[in-house]
């Protein structure tokens, strides 16, 4: 690859420095005055703790585990997200539904444990891509901080409630379709 040197011939006006310096000063003064007479709301800087940035609909922020209307989890514990995750931050333990639930139209499996280590998560959205049931979404919340590591481990119920307040849904702490032990002898 050839390096191209661009030779700039300065005119005698530019050689005096004075005129180019004045030009530069005009530019900085223009910026100064424009910024000075722009109300702080319209400036480029978002003064963060006071004002929040609006994020687009595709923003990959904090995860949410989606639920059905009755409150049962959409996730079927297929481990696709855990496999897709490049940071290996998703831990899933599967649980069985009883036949009763299967008859009602639910899948056979669901997670008993669904944990995301937010300190490891890189918010790439691969889990969202991989999910066959659209059960995990990455949404707009980008403010995650805490004073200890443990509270950055988001469990199943944390993840199901991350956007409950924002969406005006009830916070749920237990599954409306509890797992029922299978009738003995069938398994």
């Amino acid at each position: 690859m050839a390096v191209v040197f661009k030779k700039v011939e300065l005119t005698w006006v530019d050689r005096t420095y004075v005129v180019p310096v004045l030009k530069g000063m005009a530019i900085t003064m223009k910026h100064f005055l424009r910024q000075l007479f722009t109300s702080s709301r319209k400036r480029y800087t978002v003064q963060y703790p006071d004002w929040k940035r609006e994020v687009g609909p595709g923003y990959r922020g904090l995860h949410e585990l989606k639920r059905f209307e009755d409150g049962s989890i959409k996730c079927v514990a297929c481990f696709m997200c855990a496999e897709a995750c490049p940071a290996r931050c998703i831990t899933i333990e599967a649980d069985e539904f009883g036949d009763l639930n299967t008859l009602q139209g639910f899948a056979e499996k669901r997670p008993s444990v669904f944990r995301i280590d937010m300190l490891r998560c890189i918010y790439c959205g691969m889990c969202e891509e991989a999910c066959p049931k659209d059960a995990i979404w990455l949404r707009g919340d980008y403010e995650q901080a805490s004073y200890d590591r443990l509270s950055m481990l988001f469990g199943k119920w944390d993840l199901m409630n991350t956007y409950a307040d924002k969406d005006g849904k009830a916070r749920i702490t237990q599954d409306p379709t509890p797992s029922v032990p299978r009738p003995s002898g069938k398994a």
Partner: protein
Amino acid sequence: MGSLPESCLMEPLAHHLHLSPATFWMIVKLVIAFAAPLTLAAILTWVERRGSAMIQDRIGPNRAAILGRWRLLGLPQLAADGIKFFLKEDLVTRDANKALFWLAPVMAFVPAMMGFAVIPFGRTFMENGTAYHLSLLDPGNGMGMLYPMAIGAVAVYGILTASWSSNNKWAILGGMRSSAQMVSYEIGMSLAVLAIFMTTGGYDPHQIIGAQDSVLHWNVVRHFFGFIVFFTCMFAETNRLPFDFAEGESEIVAGFHTEYGSMKFALLQLAEYVHIVVAASLIVTLYFGGWQVPFIKEPPVLLSVLSFAGKVVFFCWVFIWIRWTLPRFRFDQLMFLGWKVMLPLSLANLLVHAFLMHQRG
């Protein structure tokens, strides 16, 4: 003459304080000559930070607030920084020359403050047959404008001492560069000022200002090239960008004050800003008619002081404005500019004026 209310108060006030009017006036002038540049320098740090932010489309420091409530456009940041500087640990490096290391900030700061002493910041007024001059040193002291030039030249020792005593390679590089720069620019500057002394017929600031009694007689018109040289040299003299080779933070860490912290650093920094104030007032005195008000002959004293202050503030702003406009020169470019452009230019300026004066007889 005594149109100003204060001027009528001079004798009664002095009487109440059991002082002679002359002593009282001297004390007043002392307070003004010390407080004004210091206050302006402190405000300039704020102007620099907020102004540069505006120039670069930023916001600047605005979080510091009095009692966590009143932000006042970021002005409390000054107080916060000051308190921080006082509370910082006062580190002296092991191999530093301790005595000089402590002395250097003072050596940088005192000459910076001293330069203001000779500059008249308002019109002389008469009361009861006594003339009250608004400059710390009365006219006819025999030093005139030579004094701030000489003091300005001493300022380099503060920087040099700071750099040498801290026993740091970056610092010594900054100090050497700074001294080389100051020495080379001093010549061009002195020649530019010499032309003014010549055309004025004296080197007393009162005389120089008196000669610039209308806008067309301002020396900036008559000595335009001299002004360019002097203005450029003032940047070299104050170690400001585009000539801040003493600091040069992208090349030599922080230059001469690499090893400095806490209040000693603050003093070095304050010295730079006081230098700006003094440089601005020198420019105003020499080239922009000092306290003269445009289009008003014999202005009232207060108006003349305001006029001087306004001009000085404007030129302080120009110093900041240029800092955030221009990048730093390369050192050889600086030397080239100093010796091969500024010196011949001021020399030519001097010779042309000498020739013109000779022609006029």
